[in-house]
């Protein structure tokens, strides 16, 4: 199989290629970004940027340092205001959408004054649920994921990976339509990272949640992704949009599969051209 470019319908700098879109059963866009502009002082990070993210797919965002990966998902998730532009979730606004966000820095994102179980339960307070229903939801999630952590501990009593897992569970307990993750594993050691990748893949296979995943590790980005969004720098453009067709669940063998290696070589090539700044 050769590398396929499933250009998103309205990528500003590319001709729309709707026929090339993957024939997934539910491929209509879930998140649409139109005319996004954002600058910090004199730095123009986005200028009339368009993007479509299909429903139920795992999209990895990859690009050079400082190209605007965090800025993109922070704006989509409402953590940062856009200067201009419109973002819709299947036609709805952010406020009407159930979504989760996983921070890189789990230590500063969890509430250390709450036990792990209460951290996970916290976002349910903002839904109209009885105490029993809240407890039910958490129990169901724990069972679903087969988590074997003592949830009565405080976050600081857990390992880094366990804390990030709590953090991911906290974002999943509301059964989000979309989950944003900004370099969630980059503060973990290698062994834990490998474990967490597979945990996340399992969550994705179980829930089918649309995932927008920022990573600075190309192999990780491809390993987890259905689609890899490659961003260029200043202002950010879609340099390429690459579909990864390896079947799931992917394993260590996937990494040496020829399709996988080919995709990786292609992405690396695009990336190197970007960094060399041609």
């Amino acid at each position, binding site marked *: 199989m050769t590398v396929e470019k499933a250009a998103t319908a309205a990528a500003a700098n590319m001709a729309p290629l709707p026929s090339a879109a993957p024939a997934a059963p539910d491929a209509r866009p879930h998140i649409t970004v139109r005319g996004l502009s954002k600058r910090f002082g004199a730095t123009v990070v986005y200028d009339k940027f368009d993007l479509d993210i299909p429903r139920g797919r795992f999209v990895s965002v990859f690009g050079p340092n400082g190209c605007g990966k965090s800025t993109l998902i922070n704006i989509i998730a*409402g953590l940062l205001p856009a200067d201009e532009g419109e973002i819709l979730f299947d036609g709805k606004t952010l406020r009407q959408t159930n979504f989760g*966000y996983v921070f890189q*820095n789990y230590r*500063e*994102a969890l*509430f250390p*004054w709450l036990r792990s179980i209460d951290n996970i339960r916290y976002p349910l307070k*903002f839904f109209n649920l009885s105490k029993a229903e809240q407890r039910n939801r958490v129990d169901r999630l724990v069972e679903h994921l087969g988590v074997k952590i003592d949830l009565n501990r*405080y976050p*600081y009593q857990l390992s880094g990976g366990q804390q990030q897992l709590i953090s991911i569970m906290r974002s999943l307990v509301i059964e989000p339509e979309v989950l944003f993750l900004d370099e969630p594993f980059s503060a973990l050691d290698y062994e834990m990272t490998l474990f967490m990748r597979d945990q996340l893949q399992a969550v994705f296979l179980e829930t089918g949640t649309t995932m927008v995943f920022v990573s600075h590790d190309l192999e990780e980005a491809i390993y987890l992704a259905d689609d890899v969004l490659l961003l260029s720098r200043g202002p950010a453009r879609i340099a390429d949009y690459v579909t990864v067709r390896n079947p799931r669940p992917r394993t260590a063998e996937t990494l040496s599969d020829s399709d996988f290696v080919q995709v990786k070589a292609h992405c690396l090539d695009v990336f190197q051209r970007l960094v060399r700044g041609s």
Partner: protein
Amino acid sequence: MNAIRRRLGHLTPLIGVIGLLIVWQIAVWFEVVDPVLLPSPADTFIAVWNGMTGGRLWIDFLRTVERTSLSIAYAAAIAIPLGTLLGSSTAVYRSVEFVVDFFRSTPASALFPLFLVIFGVGDNTKIMVAAFGASLVILFNVAYGVMNARKTRLLAAKVMGASKMRVLTDVMLFESMPQTFIGLRNGVSLALVIVIVAEMFIGSVDGLGYSVLDSQMLFEMPDMYAAIFVAGALGYGFNLLFLVIEKRFVHWSGH
């Protein structure tokens, strides 16, 4: 060897105490100071003992505890919510910062006449001046604790759907807790100072401040030293109390 050293380590603070008692006793023996002005450690201890077991000193002690506790309770009740509110917006805090710093720097004793006019000669004035002084110290610390709250944590709450008010009560209040306790410890020390001074000079008939001054005027030196030591122990005790509460309550700090 190491075990012995470790066990002895707990006793290190006692060295200073024993040293002080020895120097004191020697000074008494050699009459370095007029014996009327400096009673022996034993006489002083007896005065403490008698005073605290059924004597006047116990009642004075309780009155001072009561006034200081009330003033710190009032101060905390006002300064913690207000400090959280002010600190939640850096712009708002900047606008009141000068006023807070100014009154924080004003010696509380200078405010006695004003408070006397407002609250009259009674317990209220003492408690209110102490509460005022302590509240500024607490306010300042709480506001800084809130302003330095981890930004990621506030964003995390916001992204989960917490309203501004919920972010305040669910995150900022807890984030500022370690700093709040610093404010409470400093506040209670200041409140005790103010209460003792007020008990000396503002129409008092009881309290440790009154006891110190009264014993001095009657030339009951052992009683005076006894009252001073009890006041010192009280200040130390308040500090320790807040440290213990902090340890239990703010279990996450330092992790």
